């Protein structure tokens, strides 16, 4: 049911772990099935480039693979680019997910945005993120 890319990222997840002096940390829970994902960002305050990113995930194969893929997609990218990353783009990069697993990719997008929100608070920069946006997430 999973593509080779999903299985690859599940078996060899990239960027697992914590960042001790992270610029932003986001932890989110999946309302659907009770899974949890945590993302750590190291951001260069001057260039706004995400220099390092790691994750930890308690969830299924798709949740782990989307976490891993999302870290690969934003590492070395700017905050703006990261803000534009959608769960669909992550799923597409993995050559697709089974429909019942699309909500797991939402977890990855949500964790990233939560980490960026945390950075917004800590850095005082306005990234246009709003606490209220974390209430309901689109799963389509």
């Amino acid at each position: 049911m999973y593509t080779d890319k999903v299985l690859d990222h599940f078996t060899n997840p990239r960027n697992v772990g914590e960042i001790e002096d992270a610029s932003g940390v986001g932890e989110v829970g999946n309302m659907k099935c009770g899974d949890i994902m945590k993302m750590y960002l190291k951001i260069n305050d001057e260039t706004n480039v995400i220099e390092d990113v790691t994750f930890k995930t308690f969830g299924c194969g798709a949740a782990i693979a989307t976490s891993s893929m999302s870290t690969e997609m934003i590492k070395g990218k700017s905050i703006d680019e990261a803000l534009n990353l959608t769960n669909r783009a992550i799923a597409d990069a993995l050559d697709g997910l089974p429909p019942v697993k699309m909500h797991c990719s939402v977890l990855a997008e949500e964790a990233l945005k939560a980490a960026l929100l945390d950075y917004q608070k800590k850095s005082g920069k306005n990234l246009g993120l709003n606490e209220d946006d974390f209430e309901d997430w689109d799963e389509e």
Partner: protein
Amino acid sequence: MRRVYLDHGATTPVRKEVIEAMMQVHSEVFGNPSSIHSFGRPARKLIEEAREKVAQAIGADPKEIIFTGSGTEADNIAIIGGARANQKKGKHLITTVVEHHAVLDAFKSLEKEGFEVTYLSVDGEGAVSVEEFQNALRDDTILVSVMHANNEVGTIQPVEEIGKICRERKILFHTDAVQTVGKVPVNVKEINCDFLALSGHKIYGPKGIGALYMRRGVRVQPLYHGGGQERKLRPGTENVANIVGLGVAIEHAVAEMPAESARLEKLRDRLIEGVLGSIEETRLNGPRTKRLPHNANISIEYIEGEALILSMDMKGMAVSSGSACTSGSLDPSHVLMAMGLTHTTAHGSLRMTLGHSTTDEDVDYVITELKPIVDKLRAMSPVWERFQKGLPIH
């Protein structure tokens, strides 16, 4: 790579003797069992021989056996057919919260027809209480269904006692014995049941065949309509090969049971002790002793079951889980939740069901290979991190 199949609760490989018998039917006996000519007669004879084997295996009379298309179908005919045929006497039914969906969903559909259903709860080991059952009985109770043993955690239910009470009160009693035939003794007289469902593919027989025991004199309303086959309760030309396969399978399963169940029980205990002993924060789900001899269900805390299944699969081990992430419906196993497990603990549940192919080496392999897999998944788990830091787990 070693391949270890530990999902015999899901299905079993078809045994050699069954394949041979079925091949012979397919190649030599194509006649319609309802035809009276020389092509049909051998087919009829084979069906009746199989019926005798099934009857003998569970202490029934051949006239009391109906072949069905699956265990699910046997459950549905007994429950829905039995309830509808007796609704003049009352509309109250009793079952348990840990039944297989073949039973639970049949009761759900009866609720829509105006029946009232009481769902008995279970204790922390998955067992129903006879006392709670007695308290649930009413004057208008007409049918009770309690599974013989649970497919997820292996808990064996006190069906004999429940059956006895039902018999005294003239209430129909059905038991789903899909998981127990060939594992523990199954005798319809000792269980005091009016109906009993069993299935071919859990006992090294073919898929898509089951049987329903229906005690002499018991009436049900047919769910299907057509020819006169199987006492009009399962009309349609019989699947002769599958029926023959079920007969051969159940005959062998019951004959080998004393030795095989004892062998599996030893392997199962070693597996349970090995896993609980080598991996911290693990727990056995279900009872230690009053459980199916081939069932081990263990929760490995702070990791998720689907990730665990995938990782084990990559090392050749086939297992299953009650995790929400494997259910498709995104709810964790209704059985584990009814036993009072938290969401997180149900998430990390691992069911290993042993069978013919299971050896000592397989058990050693699982015990050795499981720990590094769990370590890797825990290293990735934010919940494990919380646990280790002594933070609350939400």
